[in-house]
């Protein structure tokens, strides 16, 4: 009975985090982006500096009519948002935020495998949406998503493999436990590759070619309205949470910090995640969208070689050290 309660409690907490953190990041994006462009952003919703803007948006989305195009593949079309969103919830379960047993939803032994495999599923949501919409723009968006997934999944996996090699384990808490401060310069290239590839996988600007609104309307999401569209948006922001959390855990030492009391490690994790999320927003504001060929070129001629070099470096240091 106690076990059931424990599991239920953990799931509820993870679910709450899953609902709250993406909204916090979304609101931060509203405000940070506005100020980076010399604007104020939302100021009215909720009274104080528009803190409830995303809540208001959610209410608006919920009120909208849920339209399915006549020629669409109805089932697949309706299922796609869930396929896009749920993997991130599953990944969140496996991300440890503190050193203790209670600071992770569920310890998965093959954590990296689980996390990366499930994150890849999320992109399938966009593919399904693009294919099922019966719209050429959606189809183009879906195909671009597929191309991007193929190109960027590889460097992401290679970079993650480098950390797994360094730590000698594929368990996420195990990796953070093995972390030493000098891993930071050692794995910095891998970290950059992982972060950039993750951004591309989330289709965040400057890698938002699949949704490029000035060319193909909104890519795979063109035909979506109301709650289903909101779920796609939520998936994007949940993806930011997951990517930043994963980068923190794999490359930035998770709950390790230069100072701080025992038991406050989760503050470090959240802090690093927040800084990374800020960088995601910052990149979006600063850079224009990459063209499709530039996107592929960056992945195959820059990120993959860099990731391979990182693995080689990790291997050399590992052999010399032992």
């Amino acid at each position, binding site marked *: 009975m106690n076990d059931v309660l424990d599991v239920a409690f953990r799931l509820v907490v993870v679910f709450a985090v899953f609902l709250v953190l993406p909204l916090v990041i979304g609101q931060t994006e509203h405000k*940070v982006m*506005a*100020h*980076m*462009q*010399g*604007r*104020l952003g939302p*100021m009215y919703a909720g009274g104080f500096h528009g803190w409830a803007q995303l809540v208001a948006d959610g209410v608006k989305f919920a009120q909208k009519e849920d339209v399915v195009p006549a020629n669409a593949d109805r089932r697949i079309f309706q299922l796609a948002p869930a396929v896009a969103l749920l993997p991130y919830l599953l990944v969140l379960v496996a991300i440890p935020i503190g050193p203790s047993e209670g600071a992770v939803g569920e310890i998965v032994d093959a954590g990296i495998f689980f996390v990366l495999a499930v994150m890849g599923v999320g992109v399938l949501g966009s593919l399904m949406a693009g294919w099922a919409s019966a719209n050429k723009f959606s189809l183009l968006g879906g195909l671009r998503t597929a191309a991007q997934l193929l190109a960027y999944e590889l460097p992401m996996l290679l970079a993650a493999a480098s950390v797994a090699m360094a730590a000698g384990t594929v368990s996420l808490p195990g990796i953070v436990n093995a972390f030493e401060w000098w891993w930071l310069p050692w794995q910095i290239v891998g970290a950059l590759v992982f972060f950039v590839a993750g951004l591309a996988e989330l289709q965040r600007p400057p890698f938002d070619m699949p949704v490029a609104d000035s060319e193909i309307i909104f890519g795979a999401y063109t035909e979506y309205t109301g709650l289903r569209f909101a779920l796609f948006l939520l998936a994007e922001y949940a993806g930011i949470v997951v990517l930043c959390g994963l980068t923190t855990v794999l490359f930035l030492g998770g709950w390790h910090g230069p100072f701080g009391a025992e038991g406050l490690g989760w503050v470090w994790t959240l802090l690093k995640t927040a800084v990374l999320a800020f960088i995601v927003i*910052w*990149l979006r*504001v*600063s*850079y224009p969208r990459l063209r499709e060929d530039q996107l592929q070129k960056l992945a195959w001629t820059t990120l993959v070689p860099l990731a391979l070099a990182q693995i080689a470096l990790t291997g050399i240091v590992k052999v010399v050290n032992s």
Partner: protein
Amino acid sequence: MAPIPGSGLAKGLAVTLRTMTKKSHTAQYPDVQPELPPRTRGVIGLFEENCTVCMLCARECPDWCIYIDSHKETIPAATPGGRERSRNVLDRFAIDFALCMYCGICIEVCPFDALFWSPEFEYAETDIHDLTHERDKLREWMWTVPEPPALDPGAEEPKEIAAARKAAEKVAAAQAAAAAEAAEPAGQAPQATDSTPAAQTDTAVAEQAQREQAQPPQAQRPAEGGTE
């Protein structure tokens, strides 16, 4: 020297970060009123006391958006045996702001300083017909006309002040001459007499200026265009 590869990317990030730390440019308009420059062309106010129904504004208006109705009244002769005078009385003065293109020609041509720019701009209506504003509304807008901005340092003196000063100086000179004539036989020191005319000059100028001020703001209009 060739730029370091990637320096452009760093520069881009620096620009956005710097912008974030600066004050944003958003005008929170309905909450905070904008600070408009004094010569803002918001709406045209009518100082109807000055209007003589000469119709110049209506005739010069490129849009024909000014409506003026008037009638003639006869004023009995001021002196017995004199001639009766007639004068125009304004019945209607309306500007159709749906047609007005805010060129300001009416204000330029008004020879009696009856039309003014006001920075007031919140007179949107839901019906286009309601944009024809009648004289009462135009007169109300007169209260929002700001004082003309001060002259530039070193600018030419306003004409009415120059005229007033000339008159005052003439009086002062005459008085000084009279005083000097009166003082010379008495053999008084010239310094003592000097101060009185100077003080008189000051008061004369002040009086003249007050008289001009009594009919604001048209008295100040030439001052605004003093450099023309």
